[in-house]
């Protein structure tokens, strides 16, 4: 099993969710996060005062899938979240040792 952690642009959430639903991935965890990569922050001027936006609002999506599905998922996710500009985000992939469904003790792929 693999855990996919994707940092995406907030306005891409609906597209990403739809694309993932399209390949049968419905379950995910979404959190509001702030940070920056190479995009760094930028400066806004409001009423003469410079106002530094150094941590940009992003969304973090976490999904765990069976090994057999992860390439497809990453491809779908990248396509949906891409605008081609700086700030599109990143995807990190982790190996998952075990998954357990608390309700009935299902394990492994069956618990996903």
């Amino acid at each position: 099993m693999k855990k996919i952690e994707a940092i995406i642009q907030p306005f891409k959430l609906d597209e990403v969710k739809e694309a993932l639903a399209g390949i049968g991935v419905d379950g995910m965890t979404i959190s509001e996060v702030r940070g920056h990569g190479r995009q760094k922050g930028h400066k806004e001027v409001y009423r003469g005062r410079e106002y530094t936006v150094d941590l940009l609002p992003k969304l973090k999506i976490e999904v765990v899938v069976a090994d057999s599905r992860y390439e497809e998922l990453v491809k779908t996710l990248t396509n949906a979240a891409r605008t081609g500009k700086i700030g599109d985000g990143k995807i990190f992939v982790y190996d998952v040792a075990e998954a357990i469904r608390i309700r009935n003790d299902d394990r492994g792929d069956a618990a996903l």
Partner: protein
Amino acid sequence: MPPCNDPIRALAERTALVDGMVEGFARERLWPSFPAGLTLMAVGGYGRRHLFPYSDVDLLLLVESSRLAQDAPDAISAFIRALWDSGLRLSHSVRTPEECAEIHDQNIELNVSLLDQRFLAGDRALYARFAERLPRFLHAQRDPLMRNLTTLSRERHRKYQNTYYHLEPNIKDTPGGLRDYQLVRWLAQIRSVEAPQIEPAFLFLARLRCFLHSRAGRDQNALTFDAQEQAAVYFAAPGAAQWMRDYFRHARDLYRAAVREMESSEAQSSSLLAQFKDWRTRLSNTDFSVARERVHLRAPHALEADPELALRLFQFVARHGIRPSAAAEQSVAAAVPQLAQWFSTPQPVWPALKEILSLPYAAEAVRGMQETGVLRALFPEMAQIECLVIRDFYHRYTVDEHTLVALQAVEGLRGTREPAVKRYTDLLSEMEEPALLLCALLFHDVGKGAANGAHAEASLRAAEPALERIGMPRAERDLVGFLIRQHLEMSAVMNSRDLQDPATARHMAARVETVERLKALTLMTYADISAVNPSAMTPWRAEVLWQLYLLAYNELTRELETSRIPSVPSETPQKRAFLAGLPTRYARTHTAEEIDAHLGLDGVFRQRGVALSLEKVAAAWRLTLVTADRPFLFASVAGTLSSFGMNILKAEAFSNSQGTVLDTFTFADPTRTLELNPTEMDRLRLTVERVVLGRLDVRQLLQNRPKPAPPSRNSEVRPTVSFNPEASDSATLIEIVAQDRPGLLYDLAAAISAEGCNIEVVLIDTEAHKAIDVFYVTAGGRKPETAQLEKLGGALQQACGG
């Protein structure tokens, strides 16, 4: 499951069954070791024979002395074990009569459980001793008992945000749940008064709790969405949403009774506090008296002849934050049918409502109007959303409650110090008419009662005739209508558009058209999101919304210079020539009548070289001037107004392609000179004309006026002066924020002109002693040079006192 139509009987039957078990086990295990000196008592819910299917069984073992209990611990253990093993969830305690008559601040439940005690079995003489003591104890400890009970209940209410409108309520603990029913009865019992009539609500909840327990097979009191579906079938209601409205009505009755009972107890228990609170009695007037932190109607029967008394009552609430007394609420509620009749024909009550919505405790007043039924009498449109449930995972409240919480979110902005929130507070203080924002919030979701999907349009359709009926002027209805129609727009842009993309800023700016509307819509969005659930407005969302506001604000400011009205071939030649080249903002912020009036001035200007009009608008005056542009013009007029002691609130200076300028100054007349001396109006007009035509030097006028004290360095607004040469192709943007003072605008404009700069566009706004000034300037037809701007920056800073 067969419907339980008589919950009281079902509960009593279960109680009798448990009584039998307890007595049986006691006979076997207890009485052989305790022929005397031990009594079994039922307390709490068991004591009052309200034993729900899976409720705890509260048992008190009353012992002669603690030594006696220690002498035969095995017998007591065996008895308790037997009850446990028979499947009862037992909650027991062992006490002496003396221990029962102590006040337990840390264990209020023990004291309270005794209010529902009854004898089960054992030593009758011992019970008699206890029963004799109990009334004396209750009387002597009345105040601490009531205080502990209300403190505990208020904590519980707070845990649930003090509202009974929860989409998945816990029917025992949520405000308006069964605990509030007990609270009302206990407080009445302690105070030796009759408890109010709340049995119908109790019967409804008791039946529901029996159902929930049987359904779950345990002590389950959460009314989840699933449980609501099944309960609606069980109660033979047409649907879950409809049935939940019944639930909320009963919960509302219980919650209000509980709050009233707690208030009466507090008033009774703390005479010192009451005296302290009574200082507010000085707020009393001919309509109302204030006593014990409540507003009372002096003549409740006057409501029949004077329906506006009800609105005046809520104005009083909105002004002072003092709630109506229970009696006043009842009188108003009783008058609702007449009020509804009176409001059903068009009545000019908007000024009264506007005042309520402008005052510091507006949200509290509107809540009072809703609870008494006045709001619905005024706006029958509100009936559509009463107790209306939105069944999803995000919404915590029913639609009517969401509306009230949104009003509270605006009210909550005042007085916050949180930096992420403070900037929204600043926006609110910059709004000219916050009442219009609150009015839009009141109606923004009314359409949810009728429509599926696009409710914003449905809300607008409901609001328009309602606002017309109460006499809201056209211009105000336009803003309210705009806010209702667009209330989802900023949320939608936040979620679906790239904020870094310049097209997003242009889109947002085109939607709102003016900075004034942008501010109102930003606050509307802030309040709407905040009222979805207590944690919906995360710092993350507040940040994203603020960034969107910034983008649109900067775009609108940039547009002032860059976006000009093109030549419109369909217009008359004079109108075409006048409009061409004015900023787009001009067309957006003026009605057709105003544009016609300006055209008239343009005609006069062509003959006489200058044209002006002076008129009273609401609490201020407005001077409109059309003339040919020339250096120092704007500064001269601002200076002339200052020399008359006028305080400039807003100003705009626009020029068209032909170099004709249209300046408008809105100003306050603090000493009412113009109003009291009509000749002064003529003198002001004439003086401005002479200054504009160069026949009089404004510096001469200002010479004899005392120089105003420079603003204190401790003033709330730190002055900022900034230049943005990139804002437009042909001019440089100067933005100034400063503490307002008389003559400030003259000093700023004069400094700009003295530096050889020409003022192309001006937009001045003053709210809450803060002047927000936007100038676009050129020098010799081009953007000023850097060195020139540096010098100008110093002069402007000095004028601001920075």
